[in-house]
């Protein structure tokens, strides 16, 4: 195969969505008829370009990463490439059969058994029956669910369910495999197995893989080239390392202290995080490795009604966006049974267990168990050199970002 042969070649693709709410377009036949009878012009539609003039080539046999914040257009691009929706402009030439994996377990039915779901899901994902039969044993072995093959999947644990679903997907054999975020599920060991399987797919079988993920570690580990999308436009394209650096730089530039203007957030909006701040102990002090620090999160809500069951958590990410640890009201202290409609939540770290560096913070809240607000990369926490171990020393910077308390003995005796 010549190295210049492409698997996908996209030219100027754009996708426009109608984002009018239901007061401005007819959503019932009755409304549509009334509108027409009154000779009313189509009520002025609001539109949004979710993707705008995106062009790129993916070489056959390559693994290609697509990164960008929430709402950057990644999912729209994948939907176009997998033919679920059509572009408004532009076109894509595709060489070979495309298999897409935008979710694990698409079409799984809880009443059907594991065996039946393998055939159903495989067929929906585009496998022929003969392929599924040939791969059946491999799928079952990969999922580690032999004993439950003839049990309805509604009786599966969520871990088993995900493993079975991923196992089917992992045995798809299209020329081009499109994968979205699905690695975010399952336990760590299984994720690793899946990543390994995807690596095999490109290295040994010469298939093309397109991977979209927030997990920069996975994307940079697996892909050689990639693109960065920002608000529907192509912000960078090329070797994956460069693209990832571009992404990280763009996150830092943004600063994100006032969170009110962040559009790339999810949740039902019952509350919104409005401000973000971190400060070390002492007046205006920096955050020091081993020093105390306080993360403050201001929140607001549209109504003045008191909040019930407020849960807040913070995720801390390292240089490659790999999550380092999780701080949660569910684990420490307990969720708040009631809370005022607006206020400030503070999380105190008595001894910051991090090497000097820049760390990204994601904030998350639920109210009455529904996701209320979720802002990825709400801000950056700078950590400066400090005295974590009480002796002024720190491990070499390339030995990992975390600092952990520990002690040594030799033949049972502590060193003098």
């Amino acid at each position: 195969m010549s190295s210049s042969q492409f698997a996908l070649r996209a030219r100027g693709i754009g996708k426009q969505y109608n984002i009018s709410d239901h007061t401005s377009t007819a959503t019932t036949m009755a409304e549509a008829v009334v509108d027409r009878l009154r000779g009313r012009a189509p009520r002025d539609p609001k539109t949004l370009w979710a993707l705008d003039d995106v062009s790129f080539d993916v070489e056959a046999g390559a693994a290609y990463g697509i990164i960008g914040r929430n709402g950057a257009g990644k999912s729209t691009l994948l939907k176009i490439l997998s033919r679920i929706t059509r572009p408004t402009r532009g076109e894509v030439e595709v060489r070979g059969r495309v298999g897409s994996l935008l979710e694990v377990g698409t079409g799984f039915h809880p009443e059907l058994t594991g065996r039946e779901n393998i055939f159903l899901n495989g067929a929906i994902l585009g496998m022929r029956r003969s392929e599924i039969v040939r791969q059946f044993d491999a799928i079952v072995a990969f999922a580690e669910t032999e004993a439950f093959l003839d049990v309805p999947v509604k009786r599966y644990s969520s871990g088993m369910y995900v493993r079975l679903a991923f196992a089917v997907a992992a045995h798809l054999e299209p020329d081009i495999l499109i994968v979205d975020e699905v690695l975010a599920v399952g336990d760590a060991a299984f994720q690793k197995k899946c990543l390994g399987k995807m690596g095999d797919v490109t290295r040994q079988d010469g298939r093309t893989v397109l991977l979209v993920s927030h997990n920069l570690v996975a994307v940079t580990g697996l892909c050689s080239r990639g693109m960065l999308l920002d608000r529907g436009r192509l912000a960078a394209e090329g070797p994956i390392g460069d693209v990832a650096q571009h992404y990280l730089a763009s996150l830092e530039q943004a600063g994100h202290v006032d969170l009110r203007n962040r559009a790339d957030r999810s949740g039902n909006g019952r509350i919104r995080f409005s401000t973000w701040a971190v400060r070390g102990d002492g007046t205006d002090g920096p955050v020091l490795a081993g020093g105390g620090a306080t993360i403050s999160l201001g929140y607001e809500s549209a109504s003045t009604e008191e909040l019930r069951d407020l849960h807040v958590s913070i995720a801390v990410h390292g240089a490659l966006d790999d999550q380092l640890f999780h701080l949660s009201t569910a684990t420490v202290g307990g969720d708040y049974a009631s809370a005022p409609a607006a206020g400030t939540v503070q999380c105190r770290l008595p001894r910051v267990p991090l090497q000097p560096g820049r760390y990204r913070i994601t904030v998350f809240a639920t109210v009455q168990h529904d996701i209320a607000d979720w802002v990825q990369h709400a801000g950056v926490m700078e950590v400066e050199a400090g005295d974590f171990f009480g002796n002024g020393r720190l491990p070499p910077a390339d030995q990992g970002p975390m600092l952990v308390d520990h002690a040594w003995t030799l033949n049972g005796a502590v060193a003098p």
Partner: protein
Amino acid sequence: MPPQLSTIRPFTSRLLPDFGELWLYRELVWTFAARDLRLRYRQTVLGVLWVVLQPIIAAGVFTVVFGKIAKLDDGDGRYFLLAFAGYAGFQVFQSTLAKAGASLLANAPVLTKVYFPRLVLPLSGILSTLVDLGIALLVFGGIALLKGVSIGWPVLLFPLWVLLALLLGLGAGLIVAAWSVRFRDVQHVLPIVLQLLVYATPVGYATAKVPAAFQPYLALNPLTGLMDGIRWSLLGMQAPSVGAVVWLCIASTLAVLAGLVVFTRFEQDLADVI
């Protein structure tokens, strides 16, 4: 074999679906059909028994209401079979329509995650309609045998009536499927329309018993020819007029063409609307 080259383009103006592509996905039609059949029998207590009881109960009600109360029964002991044949035939049309019509909304989560020709879903409903028909015909055959009804050569044309009923139901169902995604009220109005149609069609009574003044209106309904054809094939009743059969054929063809055109146009931005 070199990988096939294809192009993803913006909306096209094609009128009819890509049947070549549909053929590639024929196994998926079967898979969805098998899923629906399995689920139907797994989730009900009565299971298959329900499929047997349904036409018997419906035909029984028609026999009492039209045959005895409205006194349309000639007393030749075949009224129940007449109603049964009518109901079974109407069911082929109605069940195809209802299943095709609901197929997109019922599978919305799959439609936004995977691509396959969307026509696969409405088509997959046909299998369970035919299974129901098969079971109903066994029951019908049993009763006909007991009553000593002799079945003649017109029975050979029975598959034709089934085909026409399927086409008519599928055509209407495709339009309903497309519209019900866009307009939420379609799925609420449909049962009412179908309910009216049961009475506006000679399902529970024979066409010949309708007063002459209403006959021209009845002839407008293509299902009238269908009912007559089925009763001719299964019970040796009076054959439908040539005009009625021609109208039924034209209506079925038009319905399926219109359905395919509406569906093909709509399918392209389905995932953005559903």
